[in-house]
């Protein structure tokens, strides 16, 4: 049986057009699925639905099953236990995802102590070990530092460590590198890839950049205006995109293959739809 089964998910806020509509997909244990789409396409709402973190005014129909638990029907108390234990999430903005008043190491340790049965002393050792594993060169110093004393890349790695410390079965990443420089992005992606491989965790990876997704995932969903418009392996989408929007994404992500001075291909019409709709 699959780790995550999403069937006919539909989420709407108020009387507006559903933010997510007719979305179905599965993720097997250890599998990595990418979700691509632009802002407002419903990819983040889908992730929040899986985490059980949707705002109270969301009207949800369809089903989300995570390791046999029906998320959509689960009371918040039980969901909170699953979160951090079975499924964790890495957010886009590394500054707001950390508590500015607490040293980074303690925040990572809290997550561990909340869910696992460990002594405080050994928790500290485990935190520093893991901070090293995500590629922080001076883990003891980072553990003692406050978020504002770290660079964006260091913060995002600390968040990665926080997400991985309880060895979850599913890690959800929402644009985890969008706020970072390309060089730092490359390092964080490489570490994420390594860490996922080492722990065997499955991953739901959300991004607007096909190139970034292709470095982590094998399978990809393309979302547009709340619906899945295309799905397949990275290789399939890259070599033979079917939907015009996917074609645009593939071309936009291949900036290196276009000679300078030439016009870049665009998906006109789809992209400049009036913002009032979204």
């Amino acid at each position, binding site marked *: 049986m699959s780790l995550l089964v999403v069937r006919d998910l539909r989420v709407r*806020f*108020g009387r*507006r057009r559903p933010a997510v509509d007719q979305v179905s997909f599965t993720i097997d244990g250890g599998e990595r699925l990418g979700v691509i789409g632009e802002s407002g396409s419903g990819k983040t709402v889908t992730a929040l639905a899986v985490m059980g973190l949707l*705002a109270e*005014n969301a009207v949800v129909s369809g089903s989300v099953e995570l390791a046999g638990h029906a998320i959509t029907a689960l009371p918040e108390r039980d969901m909170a236990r699953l979160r951090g234990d079975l499924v964790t999430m890495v957010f886009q903005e590394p500054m707001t995802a950390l508590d500015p008043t607490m040293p980074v190491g303690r925040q990572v340790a809290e997550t561990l102590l909340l869910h696992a049965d460990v002594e405080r002393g050994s928790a500290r050792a485990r935190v520093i070990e893991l901070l090293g594993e995500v590629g922080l060169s001076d883990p003891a110093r980072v553990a003692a530092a406050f978020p504002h004393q770290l660079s964006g890349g260091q913060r995002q790695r600390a968040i990665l460590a926080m997400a991985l410390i309880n060895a979850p079965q599913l890690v959800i990443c929402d644009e985890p590198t969008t706020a970072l420089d390309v060089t730092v992005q490359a390092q964080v992606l490489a570490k994420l890839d390594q860490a996922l491989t080492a722990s065997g965790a499955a991953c739901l990876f959300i991004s607007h950049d096909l190139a970034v997704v292709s470095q982590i995932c094998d399978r990809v969903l393309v979302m547009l205006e709340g619906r899945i418009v295309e799905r397949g392996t990275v290789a399939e989408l890259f070599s033979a995109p079917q939907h015009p929007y996917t074609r645009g994404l593939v071309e936009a992500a291949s900036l290196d293959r276009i000679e300078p001075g030439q016009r870049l291909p665009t998906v006109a019409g789809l992209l400049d739809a009036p913002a009032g709709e979204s």
Partner: protein
Amino acid sequence: MKRAQLVAGLVLVALIVITAVVSVFWTPFDPIRVVPSERLLPPGWPHVLGTDGFGIDILSRLMVGARTTLVVGIISVGLAVLIGVPLGMLAGQAGGWLDEVVMRAADVVYALPALLLAILLAAVFGASTVTAMVAIGVATIPAVARVARAGTKQVMAADFVLAARVAGTSRWGVAGRHVLPNIAPVIGVQASVGFALAILAEAALSYLGLGTPRPTPTWGNMLRDAQQYLFVMPIQTVWPGLAIALAVLGFNLLGDGLRDYLDPRLRELP
């Protein structure tokens, strides 16, 4: 829920404003003229809330008192906004030593109680509505200046201020076109809260005899008059007290409601 707060505040404030306006044209009885034969009547008819120790209709005095309260609030808060906002914007836009000087001066005024200022002014000029208004206004300046400065700092950090400078917009242009419109909402909230505090302060000053003197009715001096008959007719203290409480509640609700309504982070998802 948040909307309800704003609406409740608006209703209370509107009630006070309407009462004050009506009192200009009509009150049930003369709010000033002493009628010895009708002293200390209990609530009933035709004196709905009764009469005070001078035989004056309490409802009429309450209505005129609303007017005094509003005038004192508007003038003192207006004074605070007129002086505090430019000072705060100056400090926030200029930064450096000017910022230091303005804000330290604000701290000094902040440490000075409005009451002390009022006593000082009353001693020099004699207690009047004007001295009360000036004392309350000056005491409110630091709070307004601080909010204006914080808002200005925030706006100055936005890229559109850089863009305006690239476009050749002068400091005055940046202040008028970019800073002021963006800090106006927080100033409005602060003014509303300041209004509530001004009402309380005015009542306290009049009660102590440091504000508007008799025979002009204010809620504060009505409370003072009523105190003499606390054991004869305790109900008399209830009316001005209730009026003060409702007015303060109204402006506080309005301020909080405005804050939630204007802050997009607190706004519920549509």
